């Protein structure tokens, strides 16, 4: 089959379609950089989707749990080995993604007789100042998108991950108008929750191009809060300690809810 080039292209296209369909129902994840850190947030009913990778790096992922697990382990292994042989400050998200994860994912995706990784990941690395925060999205085919690497576009202090591109676009459009790096945790948390709600609502509708109504978002958020738990983690900017990752519990966050 792959002796003929056009067959290979066709096989890749089919595979892309298949993976997109598998990832489509994935519940969104929002990562927002603010004054004191980076907040990762999603709502979930069952499995964990936000993870610690290294001292200053966290990850959120949607996809098949087995694949997410393999990629997560590889990322931790690679970061820990680097941190041990050199130093924790030598571990960088840029290198982790560009040199370790992306090539492996691309290779798996293009070898049509093997299984691709059914996963889409969002990484963040906390900087000393909000301008230095780095957000990187890695797709199942090894494609990388960062918050500031495309020079034509203004730097963003947030990133979103969702099952469909349309859902992600709407989350990003919302955050671009609603979120700034000077916000405190409470404001950031509420923006993140609204962004999540918008992303989650638009997963189910096939052609939402416009932002949903404010009241509809509030209603959806209300309904989801009643049936699902808030899963969130912080990368703290506090330079006093080496390990910046901290899980936030649902109980800790609910009092910060605002209408």
């Amino acid at each position, binding site marked *: 089959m792959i002796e003929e080039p056009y067959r290979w292209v066709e096989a890749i296209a089919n595979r892309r379609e298949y993976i997109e369909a598998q990832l489509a129902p994935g519940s969104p994840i929002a990562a927002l950089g603010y004054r004191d850190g980076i907040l990762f947030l999603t709502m979930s009913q069952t499995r964990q989707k936000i993870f610690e990778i*290294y001292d200053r790096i966290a990850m959120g992922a949607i996809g098949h749990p087995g694949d997410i697990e393999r990629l997560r*382990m*590889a990322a931790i292994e690679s970061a*820990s080995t680097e941190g*041990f042989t050199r130093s924790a400050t030598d571990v960088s998200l840029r290198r982790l993604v560009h040199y*370790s994860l992306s090539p492996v994912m691309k290779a798996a995706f293009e070898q049509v007789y093997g299984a691709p990784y059914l996963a889409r990941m969002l990484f963040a690395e906390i900087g000393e100042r909000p301008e230095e925060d780095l957000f990187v999205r890695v797709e199942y085919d090894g494609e990388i998108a960062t918050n500031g690497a495309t020079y034509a576009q203004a730097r963003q202090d947030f990133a979103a991950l969702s099952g469909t591109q349309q859902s992600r676009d709407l989350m990003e459009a919302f955050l671009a108008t609603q979120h700034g790096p000077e916000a405190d945790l409470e404001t950031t948390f509420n923006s993140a929750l609204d962004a999540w709600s918008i992303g989650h609502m638009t997963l189910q509708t096939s052609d939402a191009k416009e932002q949903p109504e404010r009241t509809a978002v509030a209603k959806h958020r209300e309904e989801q809060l009643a049936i699902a738990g808030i899963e969130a983690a912080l990368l703290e900017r506090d330079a006093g300690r080496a390990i910046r990752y901290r899980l936030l519990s649902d109980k800790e966050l609910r009092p910060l809810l605002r209408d």
Partner: protein
Amino acid sequence: MERSPVEFDQKFSGAAGDFPALLRGKGLLAPAPANSLSQAGTPPKAWQPTEATTILAFKFSGGVLVAGDRRATAGNTVVYDRADKVLEIDRQSIMAIAGVPATAWEMARVLEHSFQYFRRTQLQEMSVDGKVRALSKLLRDNFGFVMQGVGIVVPIFATYDFHPKPEARLYFYDAMGAQFEVTDYAATGSGSPAVRGILYYENNWGTKRLHELGEDEAVSIALRALDTAAESDTSTGGVDRSGKIYPLIKIVSREGIVTLPESKIAAVFKETVA
């Protein structure tokens, strides 16, 4: 076929949390050397363990106090007078070391990364028993070097255990990796016989038992003990009165680890020791 830059290990079982094994797999941690005594034909060399230092730890009312002098020696020469021998491994664990610094610091580094690696991969904190055992295993793996006369390490490990009953826990080890949990105090290094004597005396016939002491009283006893050890042991720095170099003192408690500021140690020293 060219190998990908990251080898994805397919065996994700419980063993995935073993960081030293990962390092060995990548050739980043030296395998334990063959024991020189087992080589046929060579008579066993007489070896003198050198643990030139004094480390002590005891439980008091505010947790566990761990103190170490600052002197590093090579034979009869003092090579460094600001060595840190009381090392933080994670938010509530301290490893204090007597022995060869190169091996000990490397061991502390492996241990620190092991605990974090376990937490990150397995998504749960390693249990206190697991941590204690991890250090024991490192010591055991290092024993070949000890028998060759290089690389002896005799540590103390202090940590706070939240399960099943919240309490501070204290262990000492021998060079082969046997671990001993203690209820009151532990000391290691060349100056430890004197320290052990003092702590035994204080615990039995002092004004208060060690675990009843307040923080200032505990610091005072630690300073007196180290000063006594330094009196007869040339390898122990004690308190450098002219250079104003004080021992390193850290406290492990429910809230984590506190490193006592030098000003505080100096104040207690001035009031109760000098």
